[in-house]
């Protein structure tokens, strides 16, 4: 289990609510990635974010093979995040939460490795600090 230095687990707990439900975790995953896209797309572009996401999936696959569906689906559909919600919703809620948490930590650590902790936090810490799914959830309704 990776160490969560960024408050990702707490953020997921806030966003998913008390009733753990794998399907809710799957949809929350898409909201979180939508926020990450919003933070990073203007700066590094769609292809930049997509490559980081794919590499994070690859890093996490060893511990959470259930994410292979998301990996393959993103490849097949040519669309980042495709299949992530489905992959998570097919797990137990605890396992889905762990897998998503590990994926997001891997993403943050990859970004930190590339551009340093100061800049990474500057760019995406606001996503981890977000209290709820907020606008993204409302937009999807």
């Amino acid at each position, binding site marked *: 289990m990776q160490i969560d230095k960024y408050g990702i687990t707490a953020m997921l707990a806030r966003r998913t609510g008390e009733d753990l439900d794998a399907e809710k975790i799957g949809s929350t995953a898409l909201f979180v990635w939508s926020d990450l896209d919003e933070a990073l797309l*203007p*700066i*590094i572009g*769609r292809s*930049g974010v997509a490559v*980081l996401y794919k590499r994070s999936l690859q890093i996490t696959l060893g511990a959470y093979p259930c994410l292979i569906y998301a990996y393959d689906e993103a490849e097949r559909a040519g669309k980042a995040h495709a299949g992530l919600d489905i992959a998570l919703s097919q797990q137990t809620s605890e396992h889905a939460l762990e897998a998503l948490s590990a994926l997001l930590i891997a993403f943050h650590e990859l970004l930190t490795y*590339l551009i*340093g902790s*100061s800049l990474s936090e*500057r760019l995406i810490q606001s996503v981890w600090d977000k209290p709820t799914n907020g606008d993204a959830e409302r937009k999807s309704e």
Partner: protein
Amino acid sequence: MNTAKAIINRLATGVPGLDDVFGGGLPELSFNLIAGPPGSGKTTLAHQLMFALATADRPALYFTVLGEPPLKMLRYQQQFNFFDSEKLNQSIYFINLGEETATGDLKKVLARMVEEVESRGPSMVFVDSFRSVILASETDGNIFLTLQQFIQQLGTLMTSWQATMFLLGEYFSENDPSPVFTVADGLIWLRQSVQSNSMVRKMEVMKMRGQSSLPGLHTFRITNDGISVYSPPPVSARDVEMRHGPSFTIPTDTRMPMGVVGLDEMMGGGLPRGYSLLVAGPSGSGKSILACAFLAEGARLGETGVIAAFEQRSNLSRGIEIATLIADDRIGVVDTLSPSLSVDEISMLLISEIRRLKASRVVIDSLSGFELALAPTFRDDFRESLSRLVSALTGIGVTVLMTSELEDRYNELRFSPYGTAFLTDAIIVQRYIEVDSRLQRVMAVVKIRASAHSSALHLFRIDDEGIKIGEMLAGYEGLLGGRPTRRQPLDRALLDTSDG
């Protein structure tokens, strides 16, 4: 007639030396092109300008296109000390235009830029690299918007939005009829000149509308602090004040003691302040010791000094007194160990150190070492550059002592291997002569401009306390031929009879 003119504010770029090259700073609202081959420093220059100038009230937009991936750019640029992560998304916004550019439709690229400019209201806009925009527009045959129209609209947009614009691009050729050249108010060319194993970075401001930039190629260096540009040194106190602010006052109507007993008398009362002095002599004759005595004497009188030492020796080898003065920051040392130096770089370092210490005495030891430390590309112009350096230093009122290695040739009388004798106001020459099968040292004052001085050749010796000048070497002739002949018995007390 209405004589009220538009006021062009000039922005201080935060890049050392660049404002001087621009002719007083960067004109606000100008449309600039930073061009040069890959690796020439375009992105670094742009980032350094941006981090220096961007504030929350005057934000900057940095559009990245299809060149260097933004992640890698951020990864490398943050290594520079000027990179301040705190400014990101506060006063500096990076925007990736990769998708719009990939369509090859300049209209889409322009629309996105307009959207971002209107939403952020930036004071500065950068596009890196603009070549990608040009290439993208060429591949798809833009039927909606030509490159010329694109640039024209971009220029108009930025001026109306009161933004200063920078386009970065590589592979531009000066003969390229690119429409960018026509629209641009400023053309800044970065180059890399390679000769032998040495690479020197050079900058040329080919155009800067509305002001008089410094013509020619100016060397620059990239360090952890970013870019420093070395412009030719100002040649008068007025120019120095214009560039660096008010100067300090150095008295000009007095003579400076040299710190060697007897030498001041030979020089008619010391070296006039603000003069340049060349001390020429063969290896080991005592030039550096004389230079150190000059600095130490200044310190005894409460003056500060600066030394640019090109001989590869430690501070301690100059003697404990000089080492202590350096440690106490009463003598500044200019770093001469960087590879591929230019005279302009040394000039800037010297002037900066002189101003920091309010120094009145400067030593350059030696011109031979100085020339060797220069990048090969600058050696051909050494005399001209040295002349500018000496004028610049004496122009600000400091007194300069330079040493020059001089091979002993007994069939000719030379004072400098560089023909630099004419550059200086005063010359002291040291020579070896043979008397009674021993090497003896003699010294003479050859020239002190507009001043009487002794023309006598004096024996001198060097001991633990420094240079000891003896009486005039009378009774001999042919001294400068190296083997004098005696006309009458010599006072042996003046000769150095030690075997050491």
